[in-house]
């Protein structure tokens, strides 16, 4: 008899999802799928709106990474206006994005993922969360909260609001860096650095010990990696060009412009998920699977460009780089956690460099123009990966078509493969018909998804909350039983 084991809902990620594991007649795992059941509709209801509203509208796709949408929308607007954004504004936008990455990565590590690492996979599920962490290690919890507070406060000091700020606009930004903001940032940076240093020391110790198996089995497979890079192949979070590398470290494509994304990225759909499946077109679907986000950014870049971050990048590669790549590429999806911590270092060092630049307080910060183009694509690096905004507008600047390629969507294929790999590693094979599934095994499957820190509200950008459906399939694909609620 075939059985479908469902883990529903997936806890401790942003948004809602369902995972189904499909067994064949012999009880072997045949397939695993990460279903996204949210549908929101941003791409449709933005039609008819002025493109100048897109920054404010798309920032509301998500309360965790609104800045990413704000920046991508602003950059798209820059091109519709055909303006040259002043250098000071570019740097201010970069500072905003660095703060955004910092606070989002802090949330992911301290609130969403570290309960697993520190409280143990076998600990009580009711306590294996951020509140259990606070009880078990209040120092860690306090430091993590203050690190995230640092990032959020920088967002507020720059943008006027922590969430859904409308500060980045087509042509530049609204206000320069204030003296008060500069002073606050410089005062709090040492503590933020100390926190991530301690987190890295903690994590590396775990990696040398109890997390070795997870590093090996949580989505460790060859794939392409995609991200923005700056001049000289440097780690880049907002400008630059697109590069793809493969698991050997070979550059597959370089110097790609976001305007041409449709020539190298395709978007497939599957009947069982509202999340689209982007893939690298030259390799077809699904062979064109690629990953984005912290792991990809560290794999794709040649260097980060700041001292401490580059030392951490070197260690990251030495610890986890594959033999096939000469230690250059890390293929385990579990390494996303380590990559996030390295990126926090990069962000803090980047913020420190920028805040000392006086042109951010005194320079020109906005270029103004009327509509000068009817189609444009903007890109930025969101915490979870590369984000594309593509708008078509009429001569009045009203949106006629929108396409958003979200970071988490680009990791969709990789998340499915990760779930399958984990399930094969941790679920008995074959699965006896009457066997129970222990909580730690279920949690590892969920945790595999959490490596990608997926933001599902973003990725489906759709409307309303859909009913939940659980199906049991036999080997021929026939539905043996179904239950629906909602």
């Amino acid at each position, binding site marked *: 008899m075939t059985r479908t084991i469902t883990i529903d809902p997936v806890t401790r990620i942003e948004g809602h999802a369902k995972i189904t594991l499909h067994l064949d007649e012999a009880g072997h795992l045949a397939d695993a799928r990460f279903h996204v059941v949210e549908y929101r509709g941003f791409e449709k209801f933005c039609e008819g709106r002025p493109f100048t509203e897109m920054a404010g509208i798309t920032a509301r796709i998500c309360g965790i990474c609104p800045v990413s949408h704000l920046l991508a929308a602003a950059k798209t607007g820059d091109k519709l206006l055909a303006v040259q954004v002043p250098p000071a504004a570019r740097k201010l936008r970069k500072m905003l994005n660095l703060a955004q990455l910092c606070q989002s990565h802090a949330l992911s590590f301290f*609130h969403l993922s570290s309960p697993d690492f*520190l409280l143990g996979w076998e*600990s009580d599920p009711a306590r294996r969360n951020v509140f259990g962490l606070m009880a078990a290690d209040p120092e860690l919890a306090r*430091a993590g*909260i203050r690190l995230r507070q640092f990032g959020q406060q920088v967002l507020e000091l720059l943008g006027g609001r922590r969430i859904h700020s409308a500060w980045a606009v087509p042509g530049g930004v609204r206000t320069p860096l204030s003296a008060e903001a500069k002073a606050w940032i410089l005062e709090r940076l040492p503590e933020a650095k100390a*926190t991530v*240093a301690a987190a890295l020391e903690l994590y590396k110790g775990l990696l040398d010990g*109890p997390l070795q198996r997870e590093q090996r089995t949580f989505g460790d497979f060859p794939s392409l990696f995609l991200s923005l890079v700056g001049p000289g192949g440097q780690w880049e979070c907002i400008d630059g060009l697109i590069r793809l590398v493969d698991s050997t470290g070979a550059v597959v494509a370089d110097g790609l412009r976001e305007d041409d994304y449709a020539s190298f990225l395709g978007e497939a759909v599957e009947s069982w998920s509202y999340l689209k499946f982007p893939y690298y077109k030259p390799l077809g679907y699904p062979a064109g699977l690629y990953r984005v986000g912290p792991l990809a950014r560290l794999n794709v870049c040649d260097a980060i460009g700041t001292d401490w971050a580059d030392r951490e990048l070197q260690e990251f590669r030495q610890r986890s780089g594959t033999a096939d790549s000469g230690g250059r590429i890390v293929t385990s999806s579990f390494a996303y956690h380590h990559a996030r911590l390295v990126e926090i270092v990069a962000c803090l060092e980047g913020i420190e460099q920028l805040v000392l630049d006086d042109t951010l307080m005194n320079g020109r910060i906005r270029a103004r123009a009327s509509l000068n183009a009817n189609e444009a694509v903007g890109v930025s690096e969101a915490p979870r990966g590369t984000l594309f905004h593509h708008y078509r507008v009429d001569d009045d600047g009203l949106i006629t078509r929108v396409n958003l390629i979200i970071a988490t969507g680009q990791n969709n294929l990789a998340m499915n493969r990760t779930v399958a790999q984990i399930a094969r590693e941790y679920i008995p094979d074959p699965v006896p018909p009457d066997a129970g599934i222990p909580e730690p095994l279920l949690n590892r499957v969920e945790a595999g998804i959490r490596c990608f820190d997926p933001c599902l509200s973003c990725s489906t950008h759709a409307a309303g909350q859909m009913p939940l459906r659980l199906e049991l399939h036999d080997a021929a694909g026939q539905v043996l039983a179904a239950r629906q609620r909602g």
Partner: protein
Amino acid sequence: MRPARCWRRASVAEPRGQRDPRRGDLVIGLGNPLRQDDGVAWQLLQELEDDPGSPRTAHASLRICRQLLPELAAELPLQGRVLFVDAWLQPGGQEPRLEVLTPDPLGAAHLHQLTPAGLLALGHQLFGVAPSASILLVPGRRFGHGTELSAPLRRRLPAARALLRGWLREGAGPCTN
């Protein structure tokens, strides 16, 4: 699994004993300004911001948010008093009121559903301090999509303002003019 020992050796600045130049009172407004009466806190706090004659002095900080986040707990121990302002779903007939709040760990059970009492409990658990706290509840009637406050709530705004400003005046201390 015990926490790694390296964490305890880390030199992380502790908020206890730090003097924050903004130390004083903190007013936290909650709600969604796109959901009619749920945006009342935004209205009240914006009025304080815009009114140069308001009793909000340099000792009072304002925070407005759609939902409470754990990071706010880091600000609580640096405050003398905290006031939460929120809409209150009421069928009718109730007036705005000020209630004393005490920490409640059950209100911190879920990151996306953190209550004011839960936030206080979080602050106490993490930083060992729970400031004196109250909540200003403003009865609302309509919570649909929209930015306008309902007529019943607008009629209660003067009473809400009086309670808010009275609370702020208490924290400002006796007038020295």
